[in-house]
């Protein structure tokens, strides 16, 4: 009996501490929060969250909330950023770095590059004097007074506070954008986003004639025409047995055109990306979205074990940017 009471008491204490952590944020919301909102509203780019460990998970959730409420957003893993993913950041983007201590090495390491790229930096941190806070254009103080977990084994109150601040940001942005039920439907065409993302890919992928598809050896001009026709911004490149050989995007062609001049008569393999990311049709839409967000790509070929193409999914299609269909074919 005593043990039971102790468990209940402990659990209540945890909730009390976490609730208090959020309540204490109320007075900390000030002009910098307003500036962050204006910055996002005035931005032509995306809101990119970054953070390690549990802060990273919080960043992913806030990015998902912003995406579903009209603010383009994605998550950038700080460690992966140093291995090429920083390429997804542009000068139009706003990066929100989440680090309770403000000293997270992986985050502080990428800050100079982010600033070099011209992206604006907002810090979600609990220490206004930390390196992450100092290097940021704006500081949102998400500091808490006490963690609920003993010995700092896992961040608790601090991650709850960061998540709540992210929700505050999302809700304010919804209101400022006058996001209404029509918009919500636009971003959630298939009912609740959660329901939709739990669907298996084979149910929602584009197949058959709707797939943008060219064969090895076809020209870039023919590929461009296929991309244009299918309107996904990319085309799959296959061999005669429909085995995936690569992916080519309109961006690949544009860049090659600028570098090499007239390329329209060249074969598509000159510009295609080999070894593209792929997924099995038995996976869920949520896994497809996560993979695409993680790698900063917008189309994903769906293949079988022999790498034969079964279909294709597009990020906007999954998140509601295009009309959602329950079977592409």
């Amino acid at each position, binding site marked *: 009996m005593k043990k039971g009471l102790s468990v209940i008491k402990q659990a209540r204490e945890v909730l*009390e501490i976490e609730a208090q952590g959020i309540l*204490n944020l109320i007075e*900390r919301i000030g002009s910098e929060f307003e500036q962050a909102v204006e910055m996002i509203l005035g931005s032509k780019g995306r809101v990119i969250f970054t953070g390690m460990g549990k802060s990273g998970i919080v960043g992913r959730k806030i990015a998902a909330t912003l995406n579903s409420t009209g603010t383009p957003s994605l998550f950038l893993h700080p460690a992966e950023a140093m291995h090429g993913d920083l390429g997804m950041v542009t000068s139009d983007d706003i990066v929100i770095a989440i680090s309770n201590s403000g*000293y997270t090495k992986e985050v502080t390491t990428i800050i100079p590059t982010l600033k070099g790229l011209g992206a604006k930096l907002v810090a979600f941190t609990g220490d206004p004097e930390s390196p992450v806070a100092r290097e940021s254009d704006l500081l949102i103080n998400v500091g808490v007074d*006490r*963690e609920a977990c*003993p010995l700092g084994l896992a961040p608790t109150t601090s991650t709850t506070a960061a998540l709540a601040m992210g929700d505050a940001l999302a809700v304010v942005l919804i209101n400022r954008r006058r996001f209404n039920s029509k918009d919500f439907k636009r971003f959630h065409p298939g009912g609740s986003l959660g329901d939709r993302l739990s669907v298996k890919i084979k149910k929602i992928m584009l197949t058959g004639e709707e797939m943008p598809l060219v064969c090895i050896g076809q020209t870039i001009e023919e590929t461009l025409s296929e991309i244009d026709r299918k309107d996904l911004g990319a085309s799959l490149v296959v061999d005669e047995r429909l085995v995936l050989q690569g992916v080519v995007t309109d961006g690949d062609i544009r860049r090659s055109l600028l570098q090499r001049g007239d390329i329209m008569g060249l074969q598509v393999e000159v510009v295609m990306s080999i070894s593209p990311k792929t997924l099995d049709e038995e996976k869920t839409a949520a896994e497809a979205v996560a993979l695409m967000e993680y790698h900063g790509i917008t189309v994903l070929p769906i293949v079988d074990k022999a790498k034969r193409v079964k279909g294709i999914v597009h990020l906007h299609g999954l998140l509601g940017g295009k009309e959602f269909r329950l079977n592409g074919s």
Partner: protein
Amino acid sequence: MVANKLPRGLIVDLITPLDDTGGIDREGLNAILAKVLPHADGILLAGPQMGEGRGLGPQFKVELFEKASAFVQGKVPLFFWISENSIEATKELLDHLKGILESTGYRGTIFWLDSPLAYHSNRGLYRYYQDLTAITDRAFVLYNDAGLIKLLEKQLKRGNIRTNILKDLSRIEKIVALVFRGSLTRVNNYQKALDRRPDFKIYDGDEARFLEHPSLSGIVSMGANLAPRIWSTVTRASLGVLEEGERKPGYLSQIWEMGQFLKDLMDMYRRNPVWTVKKALSDLKTIKSPACAAMTKAFEEEQSPLAEFIAKHHIE
């Protein structure tokens, strides 16, 4: 006001080493300071718990301050408990300490730690602190511990600073932090009252509380006299500021084990902390004697429960 940065982390509630005549054990003081300094983010001198500040007397406190500050040389911030039995005595002690600072030209960070309810009621506290803080250009830290006030056996209505009084006190810029011992509900109320002062820190004065739900400002620790390195590691882990090199695979289980060790250690000295810790340090030859100030003397005869524990865990 001298701009002093409050530390975040481990503040060692230092014992006051005494020789058998009741004077300061100078060598012992230097030895214990040398032991804790590499691991401490701050040191509390003459504190009401481990420092036996209630039983030292003003002259002794001034001497202790002089000797300890000469050794510390500004390496870490010092917290000095200034509370005496009356307003006048407290102001007088503060005046003396201020004189030492001026005469020695001490440039290190100092915070005056005060338990106002030890000698003053909640009523009129704001006006009192306006006067007290005008004496010196150093900042003040409040010490709230209803248990301590109860020990003083004064006919005071309250052992805790009232929440609305604390809110008023937080308007005084020179009051920068609070060391807290008490209920979670009260500290939550205090935090709410202080929400217009995001720079204001609340340190845990209760080790058991800190090990369960750590304050992110830090801890004033008694056990750090014995195990400063472990307390430092656990504190930094709790605050999420461990160095990169310390986050090796399996470090979480090590932190868990260290936490369990500190809890076991705490159980050993919980009942009679000052004498038990002093006895252990004296057995380890860090200080000359386990002698305690008059107030603590009554407990000196017990067998130290720490001796076996120390031998088992190779504490040095």
